[in-house]
């Protein structure tokens, strides 16, 4: 960095991003080297368990059989049709629940009396096992995708809601003083300051919400359905088709990872000013 002014600006060099001296490949990219190794070891243990202890394929299928089954699924139409159903239920529920949570939280933060009034019920519902309402949702919304979307929505709502409430209040006293000195209106302070300060919290909430609403969609399918990944899984389980069950579990794990990865990418793009090595933890523990 060269200073453009001739005048000396003591001790004011631009702060360089700390770069560590060159480290070994292993230390720099642990996920590229160590993670595949761990997978290999796990696969080895899996195979060894079957060979050494003679575990029945009905209890634990051989990895190769699972991959064969996965390949069959990936090359046929059935998986994609059901994948689309589940991902839609999840996507719609996640979006509805998150948007509703942001709106309701933003309104409540601006009406503190109402927020206080609601808080005991919010805490009660937060700690309530929301999965337990799934059978009721089927009664209310029928057997189609609606009850699954509803469960995904309910499960997505609370983690986002709680984080938005905390996030919108997380500006510092100095930041609020600054806005007061500038004579910013409440509305300006909200949009210029509070929304921006809340974004990292909102993303922390979204990450939890994504896992929960995927869980909600699949649980909903467990309870009553004729399509979706949850339905496929139950079918194979009932037929003692264990290879298929394991293959589907791998598919679900991949969806979860993909959603995590997409949200992480959005997080880094949108909240570019945060130090993402110290990711914000969700403001509060959540129960499903």
């Amino acid at each position, binding site marked *: 960095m060269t200073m453009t002014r001739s*005048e000396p600006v003591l*001790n*004011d060099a631009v702060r360089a991003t700390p770069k560590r001296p060159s480290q070994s490949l292993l230390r720099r990219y642990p996920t590229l080297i160590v993670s595949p190794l761990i997978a290999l070891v796990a696969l080895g243990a899996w195979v060894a368990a079957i060979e050494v202890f003679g575990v029945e394929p009905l209890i634990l299928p051989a990895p190769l059989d699972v991959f064969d089954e996965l390949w069959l699924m990936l090359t046929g139409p059935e998986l994609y049709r059901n994948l689309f159903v589940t991902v839609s239920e999840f996507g719609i529920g996640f979006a509805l629940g998150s948007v509703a949570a942001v709106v309701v939280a933003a309104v409540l933060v601006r009406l503190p009396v109402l927020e206080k009034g609601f808080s005991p019920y919010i805490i009660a519902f937060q700690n309530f096992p929301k999965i337990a309402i799934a059978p009721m949702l089927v009664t209310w919304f029928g057997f189609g995708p609606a009850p699954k979307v509803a469960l995904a929505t309910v499960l997505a709502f609370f983690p986002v809601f709680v984080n938005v409430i905390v996030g919108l209040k997380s500006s510092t006293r100095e930041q609020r003083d600054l806005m007061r000195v*500038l004579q910013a209106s409440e509305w300006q302070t909200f949009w210029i300051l509070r929304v921006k300060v809340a974004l990292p919290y909102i993303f922390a909430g979204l990450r939890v919400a994504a896992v929960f609403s995927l869980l909600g969609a699949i649980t909903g399918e467990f309870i009553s359905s004729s399509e979706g990944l949850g339905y496929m899984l139950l079918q194979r389980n009932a037929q003692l088709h264990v290879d298929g069950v394991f293959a589907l579990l791998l598919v679900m794990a991949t969806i979860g990872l993909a959603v995590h990865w997409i949200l992480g990418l959005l997080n880094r793009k949108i909240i570019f000013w945060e130090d993402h090595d110290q990711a914000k933890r969700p403001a509060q523990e959540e129960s499903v």
Partner: protein
Amino acid sequence: MTAQVTGGPGTGAVPGVLPGVQVAGVSKTFRTNAGDVEALAEVDLEVPQGAFVSLVGPSGCGKSTLLRIVAGLETGSGGSVLVAGTPVDGPRKDFGMVFQQPVLLPWLTIFRNVMLPAQVARDRSPQARQRATDLLELVGLDGFQHRYPRELSGGMQQRAALVRALMSRPSLLLMDEPFGALDALTRETMNAELLRIWSETGATTLFVTHSISEAVFLSDVVVVLSGRPGRILDQVQVDLPRPRTFDVMESPEAARLTSRIRGHLHARGAVG
């Protein structure tokens, strides 16, 4: 004083002529769970327009509280504050404030940060942009407009905060230990730059600091406050010639003033 005044409400001000800040009988008591804490006891203070006045005192003497009351960020438990003859009942357009931390918004570039007062005032004029550009140049931040705060050192961030405070052409500049978080060398540089900028803007400046030498170097008057509850022990007139350089601090006069202020603080056994 041979200040080159470049406009603003402070234009043509000669220290000691017009009233800048008038503090009369201001007190402040904080209510806490452990009982009432008296932070300020009946403070009277007159700051002439265009003057540079520092408040020094031990930690917790209420000097920041006094500054915040003058700024309109807090209300006193008693007494009154007039700025330019008008009572203060809240922050005003003609006030500029610099906090201990730069308080730059990390998602805005330096330019957008210093334009914040214009944004809040819905001033989209090219004059506002020009003023931001000029002021950034004045503090040596030209070329850093499009950087983000975290890419700048603490000293540079505080310069940007100073520019933001100057955007509204304040007649009163309030600074709450603005250089307290900087290292000694950066602090000295910032002191020299602050004097240069102050002489160019002509704003009445109220400056809170822990540092006696910083106060002497910068000020026309150093107001010495006692420990809690804060009351004024002395108002030390600093008649060192301006424009000042660091050499001025080597003079016997500076040494005499410094030891006089230090004497006040040590007599109470309350130096923080």
